[in-house]
């Protein structure tokens, strides 16, 4: 071959280059692939175990909508919740939580300590269209929305129709009723002044939250009890830390004629097939002004130290969304925060809960925080008037 010609570039070489480029692209794609695991959010709440399971199950259905994330509910006692959520921002790392369900009365304190994030404006607009004005008011402090409303609790009067064929007209009527031996007339938890003051302040004309409010309410309460034969037991039943549990048991066993309580009791009474009826809170005396029921709102707050604030806020907003909020609250026997709750078929299918929803129509927000001065005075006031008799030995020593 005398002729020496330069060979053209082979198509195989081009194919090889193309293949190598594809390989490099694949390499880059693999190299860029993230290896981080899906974030996990911790939701802290003081809820009964059964309610935790309901919430956890709902969160598992919600998780796909949040992207690759999981949410874990941690149930803790109220005291632990308060300590964890209320910890100063600098101490937040030691109490790991991302979202918490807290009473709306805590929000001011939490905001002052910069422990929680505000609701972003775009989410607030969605809340304004879906949440009831009362619930929205509860989470708004000085014009700033600090939390996502989650549930509402409002007290009503449970009464046993065997002892009261008609709805009692006043607390005095209940206390004066002729009841069988061993049956106490009224269960009332005096520990929450938000529930007690409306009952006793109306006749005295004292202002809610004024300096002398606690004393005025205590005197009014004592006057109401003054004539009753079971005043000692009633006082204990109203003031002991375990009062709520004992009252529920007594009412369930027919040993308590009436009881002031929230919708959480419905499950118990329905399970036990206890005869009960529900009415709005009556005035303390016949002819007295009817009390304005105080509603307590539980709200979702987002930790200011949460590593995934956007995700946590989306989670909180999702739990406040009408359909999901109704579903969770009806399953846990609490009232939803949805603006159009009364039109809900889910709620209509539960007549007792629906009664509470109607009570909510005339309710106002519970104004007092546990940290307030009035609350402290009230606790002192209820511990003073009646001491246990010597005949009632304390079981503390026995059980220790």
């Amino acid at each position, binding site marked *: *071959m005398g002729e020496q010609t330069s060979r053209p570039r082979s198509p*195989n*070489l081009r194919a*090889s280059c193309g293949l190598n480029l594809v390989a490099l692209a694949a390499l880059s794609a693999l190299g860029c692939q993230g290896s981080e695991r899906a974030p996990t959010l911790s939701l802290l709440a003081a809820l009964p175990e059964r309610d935790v*399971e309901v919430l956890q*199950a709902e969160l598992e259905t919600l998780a796909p909508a949040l992207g690759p994330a999981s949410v874990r509910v941690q149930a803790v006692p109220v005291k632990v919740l308060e300590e964890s959520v209320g910890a100063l921002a600098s101490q937040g790392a030691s109490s790991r939580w991302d979202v918490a369900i807290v009473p709306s009365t805590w929000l001011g304190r939490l905001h002052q300590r910069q422990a929680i994030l505000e609701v972003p404006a775009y989410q607030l607009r969605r809340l304004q269209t879906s949440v009831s004005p009362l619930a929205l008011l509860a989470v708004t402090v000085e014009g700033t929305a600090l939390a996502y409303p989650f549930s509402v609790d409002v007290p009503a009067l449970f009464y046993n129709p065997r002892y009261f064929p008609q709805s009692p007209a006043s607390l005095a009527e209940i206390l004066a009723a002729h009841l069988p031996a061993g049956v106490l007339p009224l269960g009332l938890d005096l520990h929450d002044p938000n529930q007690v003051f409306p009952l006793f302040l109306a006749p005295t004309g004292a202002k809610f939250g004024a300096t002398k409010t606690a004393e005025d309410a205590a005197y009014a309460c004592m006057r109401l009890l003054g004539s009753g034969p079971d005043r000692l037991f009633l006082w204990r039943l109203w003031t002991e830390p375990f009062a709520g549990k004992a009252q529920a*048991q007594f009412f369930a066993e027919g040993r308590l004629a009436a009881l002031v309580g929230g919708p959480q009791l419905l499950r118990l009474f329905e*399970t036990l097939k206890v005869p009960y009826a529900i009415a709005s809170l009556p005035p303390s005396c016949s002819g007295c002004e009817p009390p304005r029921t105080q509603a307590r709102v539980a709200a979702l707050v987002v930790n200011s130290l949460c590593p995934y604030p956007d995700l946590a806020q989306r989670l909180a907003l999702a739990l406040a969304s009408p359909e999901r909020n109704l579903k969770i609250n009806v399953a846990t026997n609490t009232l939803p925060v949805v603006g159009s709750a009364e039109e809900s078929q889910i709620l209509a299918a539960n007549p007792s809960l629906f009664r509470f929803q109607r009570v909510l129509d005339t309710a106002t927000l519970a104004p007092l925080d546990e940290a307030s001065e009035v609350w402290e005075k009230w606790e002192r006031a209820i511990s003073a008037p009646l001491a246990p008799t010597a005949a009632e030995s304390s*079981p503390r020593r*026995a059980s220790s």
Partner: protein
Amino acid sequence: MNRFGSSLLHQLTFSHALVAVVLSLGFGAIVVGVVWARARALEQRVLESTGSVASGQLLQRLRRLEETRDGLARALAARPISGTVADTLWLHEVLSYTDVDRLEVFSGLSRLAEAYDLLPGGSPDLATQWLPNNPQVAALLQSGKAVNWLQWLPGGEPSLKSARQVWAAGTAPLYVVATLALHPSWLAPSLPSGVGASILLGDRPGLSWPPHISGKKPGVFAPTRLSRTVVRLDDDTVVSLELLGSESSVADVLAPAVRAGALVAIVSLALALMLGQTLARRLLSPLQDLLEGTAAIARGHLTVRLPVRRHDELGFLTREFNRMADEIRATYLGVISTLAEVVEAKSHYTREHIERVERLAMATAQVLEERGWAKWSSHQKFILSVAAILHDVGKIAIGNDILNKPGPLSSSERHEILSHPDVGANIVERMGKLERAAEIIRACHEHFDGSGYPRGLKGEEIPLEARIILAVDAFDAMTQVRPYSKARPLEEAFAELRAEAGRQFDPVVVEALIEAVEREAHGQRLASRDSSGYYRSISGDSGDVPAVAS
């Protein structure tokens, strides 16, 4: 590269890529297997430690239940109880200091007092199914033993019961029962993220945490399981824990290994393709040259020589090919030489005439190339050279009396003379591979204006090589001493050539020939060794064969 070369190239490249992929996949499989085994072992250890903590928590709950039971029993020994509201309140106060769900006091078969925790969701169904419903427990209690047992609610929820007998002064024996509802959420604090657990109670379905864990994924990604017995209760119920590794944890651990394996495989594949193709090209390049060289010889390109670039088997093969090509060429040249000698002997030509015609023809061709008027490959030059040597080979068939006749030729003699180009062409044609040379020889006596013979071609119809040989042959005849004429001076020969330009000769060829002759006269050698001098080399003047440039 032809199909044969492409196929080998693909095969070699593919084999490299295949080896790389097989090796990297094999290695990757080993790595993934090792990682998988270690991940499973690690998860097993995590489950073991979790199981230890979780069962400790369950036992602690049981111990606290027993402590509550015993504390209440001690208190009852000192405090009479009759089931009044005050008694219930007192029991509630006790209950508030504990974390049990229900306290009950029985006198014989009747329940004297009870306190239960309802608000956080405790169920009233936790009420104890007392002795008549539970003879095994009754027997143990009446024998004075403290008893722990399990009671199932109608809804399928279990509760732990712990009871003991109390002897209070002046009363019938009392029985204290403390109850704790079993909740799988107890396990939550001791479970690492992703680990699930079930409390198994005898042969009943387990209580799982987190709710709705399945653990049913089959195959190698099935979660690791660990079962651990916690305690055997007095009703022979065995409480055990089953821990379930995360369904995704092993997959999560494996994912980086698989990604790394895929990276290695892809990098190996890319490198194998690059290196394989480079090596294949390096191996196939000499083979490709040999293939093309063989094809060239088959087409009659007798001057083929391949460059020897390697010193391995392929280099040896290339050298052998060149040797074979040389032998083929020498055979051909031997035949040409023989024919040339016959022509010399027949037509009183001297060897120098043939040599000069060949040399001048090649020099003229070179001038034409330099002027850009023509372009020849080395093979075409070889053909020109052969044609120049054998341009009068047809004269072999003409009788010597006609060929050397001094007088005018008769018509038949003339006809015989005119047929010698065809005869020569036929001879050369039969040698094979020299068809082009035969064609040139056939046209060597055609004139530019069409007045030549044997076919009367004119102008461009006549092969350029034939036009060159015609002019060169005429020039040599004019400038050399012939039996019937003396040599003419160069200027006269040039004038004669120019006079016949356009008639007998191609004007371009004439000018190129004159330039070649003038250059030679000035001492410049025109034709290079690779394109001229075949005749000299085959006739013994020089021992070497013209080389072919590589």
